[in-house]
């Protein structure tokens, strides 16, 4: 099971892992972290849970559904993205204050880590209260990305993995925001008790921390431990 925003990278990881280990056809189930957590709690037959943050894996760990403590397999990177030609590169984040920007999308901070990061970032640079009225909340990173991509909003916050995804690559303009102005978006993974006995599951879990995997992850816009 994996939360939505890791799935592009996940596809590559799985095929790479498949080639190397012979575990073909690792199946993925994609939903939001909250739903997956609720399901796992009730005995969903998942082996590994790749979350978009640490909260959900920790929750499951505390409740005793995991084999060991959650580990960080990647750190997400927040970007501001626009399809409407807002001069992000030139003016930086302050462009959000301009009248050209009427609507700003961000994932909902209540349940999406990228949303929390975006809000924290805006508060730290003192913009949050000023742009509050312009904000539209997307349910998830991907919905927020849709809002941006469909030009329903002028700019928006999303994950770097989105703008680097095969479909979005090269569309619009985006900038990374100052990484020191928000707490790192640690993406946690846990090996679930149901997967403890499964050779492929444990194999894949271990594979996630190999350099091969890290290379793929960083290609998709994640920061992995070494670079940190």
């Amino acid at each position: 099971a994996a939360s939505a925003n890791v799935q592009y990278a996940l596809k590559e990881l799985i095929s790479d892992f498949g080639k190397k280990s012979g575990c073909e056809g690792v199946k993925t189930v994609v939903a939001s972290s909250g739903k997956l957590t609720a399901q796992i709690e009730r005995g969903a037959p998942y082996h590994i849970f790749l979350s978009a943050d640490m909260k959900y894996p920790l929750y499951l760990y505390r409740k005793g559904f995991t084999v060991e403590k959650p580990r960080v397999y990647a750190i997400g990177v927040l970007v501001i993205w626009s399809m409407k030609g807002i001069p992000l590169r030139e003016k930086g984040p302050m462009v959000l204050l301009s009248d050209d920007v009427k609507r700003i999308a961000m994932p909902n901070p209540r349940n999406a880590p990228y949303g929390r990061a975006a809000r924290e970032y805006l508060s730290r640079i003192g913009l949050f209260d000023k742009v509050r009225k312009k904000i539209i909340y997307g349910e998830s990173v991907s919905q927020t990305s849709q809002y941006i991509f469909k030009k329903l909003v002028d700019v928006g916050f999303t994950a770097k993995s989105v703008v680097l995804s095969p479909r979005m690559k090269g569309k619009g303009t985006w900038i990374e925001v100052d990484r020191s102005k928000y707490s790192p978006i640690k993406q946690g993974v846990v090996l679930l008790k149901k997967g403890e006995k499964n050779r492929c599951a444990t194999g894949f879990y271990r594979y996630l921390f190999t350099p091969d995997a890290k290379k793929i992850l960083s290609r998709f816009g994640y920061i992995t431990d070494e670079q940190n």
Partner: protein
Amino acid sequence: MFDQQFVETIFLTFRLAFITTVILFFAGLPVAYFLAYKDFRFKPVVETVVSLPLVLPPTVLGFYLIVLLSPEGFLGGLIEKISGHSLLFTFEGLVLGSVVYSFPFMVHPLQSGFSSIPPSLIEASYTLGKSRIETLLKVILPNMKPSILTGIVLTFAHTIGEFGVVLMIGGSIPGETKVASIAIYEEVEALNYDRANLYALVLFLITAFILIVVYTVNRRFTRAQNL
């Protein structure tokens, strides 16, 4: 416990359900009337089109609505040209989305209600010089109360519970488009089960209260004959 945002959200929810139901009743009536009393070649096609919004997952329907309503979309452009602003991420947009999504829930029961009226009643009204409209209001509608009730209850309850479309085209703006179903969803996602339960409970109680009143009043007027 019941902070201001909570109350605001609940209120917004019932406002949306109420407005949607009212609009759908008046929008659904002519369509259902037409489908029940006219026979034409392509009627099955029209009936199918009426049912189709149901087939799409609400979020997907919401997605297509976004495409349609976005300033670049056909409808969105038109609306923006006329009214000066877009419907997306506004309460009006939510109403539109709910209306589209719940359309079949109103039209179908009304249509089957219309077909259950004995034609001789309608003929009698016509020969008494009453226009179609007057016949509709005074003869047809009062004699299809169970179907009207079905349409209204299904639409109302469904609009309260619906969240896919709303989630898509609303943007969860507190006081404007953040209705209870979305609030509950968010709370569940955030693992705040207590608060989700509270929302659900309040929603449940208010709706249950409304429905019990409706059904009790209805029972007064149309007592079943124990057959």
